[in-house]
């Protein structure tokens, strides 16, 4: 697993890319690589409200505070739960390595007062009961898929490239994805996920994005599982970049002390 935690700057297509004006001959692969290879700040922190809503309109709302840093070799993140009250101070830490090694993950449960390492092989596992899988949140290497530029199309007034990505090897949880990438900033604005039976499974929509400290940042995004009629809304606030978080701050000790 590339990333365990939600990365504000690398939510798959949510990546931002500032480039010189694109040449007309860009291929699907080139576009997706540009989206993927987005540089992010040295470190980042922010608050996240995650709302899960089922087909009966029942909601689960979780508030988290997230910190992350990236030194080029390893990307480290810590997330603290703020609410609901009974999981307050529960924390997760994730180290993701650039060399392709499996992530290292830890969890701290305050009720148990113990830190546990977690290892998982479930790439298609859903993130905290949400409609995002770890893969949806993480940056699946563009190399794993074949990309085809289908057409150009306007979404909410933004001219977009429409790219179809199909996995190179069989057995992946999606038979294909279709991504709408804004031509102006190489920011993905919409993505459709198709199940192995080639039916539409989920739709990801970016509701709000803004430039913070010079970095394009997604502030509101919604994943809608049309088959299960279940959706997840993520809202980011107080996003700050380059606050000087040190490598050695991302430790088990930090996890246990809480905020």
């Amino acid at each position, binding site marked *: 697993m590339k990333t365990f935690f939600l990365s504000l700057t690398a939510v798959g297509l949510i990546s931002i890319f500032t480039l010189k004006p694109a040449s007309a001959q860009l291929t699907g692969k080139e576009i997706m690589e540009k989206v993927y290879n987005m540089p992010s700040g040295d470190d980042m922190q922010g608050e996240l409200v995650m709302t899960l809503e089922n087909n009966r309109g029942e909601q689960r709302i979780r508030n988290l505070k997230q910190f992350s840093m990236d030194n080029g070799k390893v990307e480290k993140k810590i997330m603290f739960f703020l609410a609901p009250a009974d999981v307050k101070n529960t924390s997760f830490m994730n180290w993701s390595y650039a060399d392709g090694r499996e992530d290292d993950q830890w969890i701290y449960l305050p009720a148990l007062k113990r830190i546990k390492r977690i290892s998982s*092989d479930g790439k298609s596992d859903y993130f905290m009961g949400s409609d995002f899988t770890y893969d949806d949140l993480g940056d699946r290497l563009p190399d794993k898929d074949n990309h085809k530029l289908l057409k150009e199309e306007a979404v909410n007034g933004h001219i977009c490239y429409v790219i179809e990505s199909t996995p190179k090897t069989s057995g992946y949880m999606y038979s294909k994805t279709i991504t709408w990438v804004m031509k102006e900033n190489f920011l993905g604005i919409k993505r459709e996920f198709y199940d192995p039976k080639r039916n539409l499974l989920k739709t990801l929509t970016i509701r709000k994005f803004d430039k913070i400290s010079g970095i394009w940042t997604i502030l509101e995004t919604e994943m809608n599982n049309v088959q299960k009629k279940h959706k997840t809304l993520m809202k980011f606030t107080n996003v700050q970049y380059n606050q000087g978080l040190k490598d050695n701050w991302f430790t088990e000790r930090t996890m246990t002390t809480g905020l």
Partner: protein
Amino acid sequence: MKKLSKQLKLMSWFTLVLILAVTVLFSTAIVNHARMETNLDKYMPHNHPAFIYSDQAEEWFNIKDGILIAIENKESIFNPLTLSKIKEISLDLLSMDEFEEIDIQSLYTADNIIGTEDGLDVTSFYDEVPETAQELALLRKNVIENDMVYRRLISEDETVALIVAAMDDEYFTDEFYHRILNFAHSFESPAEAIYVAGRPIVEGTMGLLGPADMKRMVPIVLIVIALVLYVLLRRTSATVSIMITVFISTIWAFGLMAALKIPIYAVSTMIPVMLIAIGVAYGVYFYQYLQQYFHNNPESELIIALKSVIKRLSVPLFMAAFTTIIGFMSLLTSQVYPIKYFGIFTSFGIFTTFGLALWFLPAWVILFGYRAQNISSKTSKKTAWNIRLNAENITQILINKKRTVFIITAVVVALSIYGISKVWINSSFLANFEKESDIVLTDKFVNSKFGGTSTLNVILESEEYDAFKQPEALTLIDEMQYETMKLSRVGNSFSLADYLKRMNKVMNSNDDEFYTIPETSDMVAQYLLLYEMSGDPENLLKIINYDYNRTNITFQLKGDDSQTINEALTEIKKFEKPLSDMGISINYAGSGYKALVFTDLILDGQIKSILVSLILVLLLLTFMFKSIKAGLIGSTPIAITALISFGVMGVLNIPLSTTTALLSSIAIGIGIDYAIHFLQNYRMNLNTETNQLDAIKTTMLHTGKAITFNAVVVISGFLVLLFSVFPPNRTLGALVSMNMFTSFLGTLTLLMILVFGFRVFIKNNSTKAEIKE
């Protein structure tokens, strides 16, 4: 005279053509619109509170019936070939449109959450099929240590693996049923046996087997009845015409059903059998009366004979049809729609048969003639003389020995009441199959290796948010599971408590000491959060809602019969009080529970409909014969028939089920016909004969003969059903035959003695009969 005859013939042709035209019309409706309904769920009254709740709960927790595919390898399933088959079956099922990912559970799809010294490991049991002895040993170890899988998906003796495929009933079609069976069995090999079980399969087999068997049996019943009719009546033309009436009435009944776009339910397949049993009688009476008329007036013209027969027959036949229809219409009190339809369309068919007996049969006789000479031959006369002598002797003996008859009746009634006290209702679908049939053996096999093929869902609800994060509530749930699982027929159970106990153990270095409910609600909340983050959160959706105040506990039972479910319910209900003290309410859901409620509804409806029809029949007889005495005595044979019918079921341990419950209607419907004919003729004979004894003897001779004919024909026809391959159809045949026999016997013995002894239709001490009309 000749002109009249020509006109008559023309009218008869017109009648025949008209009937034929309507029959063709109804046949077209059948061809175009008839549709078989095999989904047993459609039987359930979905507006009943218990069903509304269960349907709701099924939606809340994605509760579905599972098809169970078991793969057995007598050595051990831990070998590359069997494991690859488990993988292949799982993947193939996933690729079918009928299933979603969440619906398929197997060793291949399951998550293995294991605790290690410093952490938590969430992996699949295997992705690539393990090949080496070392890999296989590790997999085996993982399975045995994980009780979410061990004994649930892999049997304790490690020889059987289960693949569970949950599905919506709507998707279950004949086509799918055959496809899934073929699919599963295609994985069979000398080393591996495949078993397919589960409620959808049982329902599918039942929905197909019953009607298919009926389709095969009805023609045989028809042929046997036709043969017996011929032997008794000795007339080809009469036999053919009677068979045509029942055939036409069946077509009309199903034609109307098709025209109204009402599907054919499994229970509707009994309609032809009912119409044959009842309809043949009407034809037999017609020809009997005709024969008797010519016997008394050998020189009479056919048209006069017919007029007389129609005049004499129409009232009792109408009353017979009317009372029978009341018997079937009483089924409208049922809350079960297919049973209501069964009542309506059988009634329509009976009305048709009645009409045909009075219009079609005379027309047929006019067109194809009637030879009256049969009984005028010498030998026949001698036989007739013997019959008369016998009838008179029997009547005399019965009247003399009436005390014996009463005593026998009393003993039979007492035995029946004892039997009725032992009648039990069975909601089991499986009980409909042969004990040695594949489906029963498979079910038995899977039950012997796993928790059980049937499920009962217990739904707990509280007004308080987070109610089921509280250790007290969870402990109570755990206790409920523990106590209920002590029952031998309860094989397994599954709840939020199981998840939490496992998480607690895993988070405490897999120490068995910690296989307990976590101590605080915070710890529960954090474990659940952890599970959501590391496992498959959809598994949790099957047992707990978002507000943590509604939870689903699943019990696996080793049988789908009422006894097993009730036993479990009794144990579970002991927890109602302590749960309600915590503000938690308890409800039940799932197909097994619905079937239980359903059978209760059937029984309740049946008792209602029997009482309603008995009372109506009593009133009708009283009204018809203007005598409460006649009404009471006339109702005696059917009341006794109903008693014996249920009594025998009790004594022979035949449970009350959808099929058997309907038999009371036919018992009353047919039984009353005998009584009406007997009373009607007796009243007429009182007018012509010189004294009461002669009148009763004559009635015994003529009506007795007609009733005997009728009983012999129908009973022999229904005995054919004993050779059916579908046990409920066999039971139907046996019980209908028995009911006919009881009604027949009761009418000619008890009813006769009572009518004679209580001087029905006779005013005070006068020997002259009193005829009111």
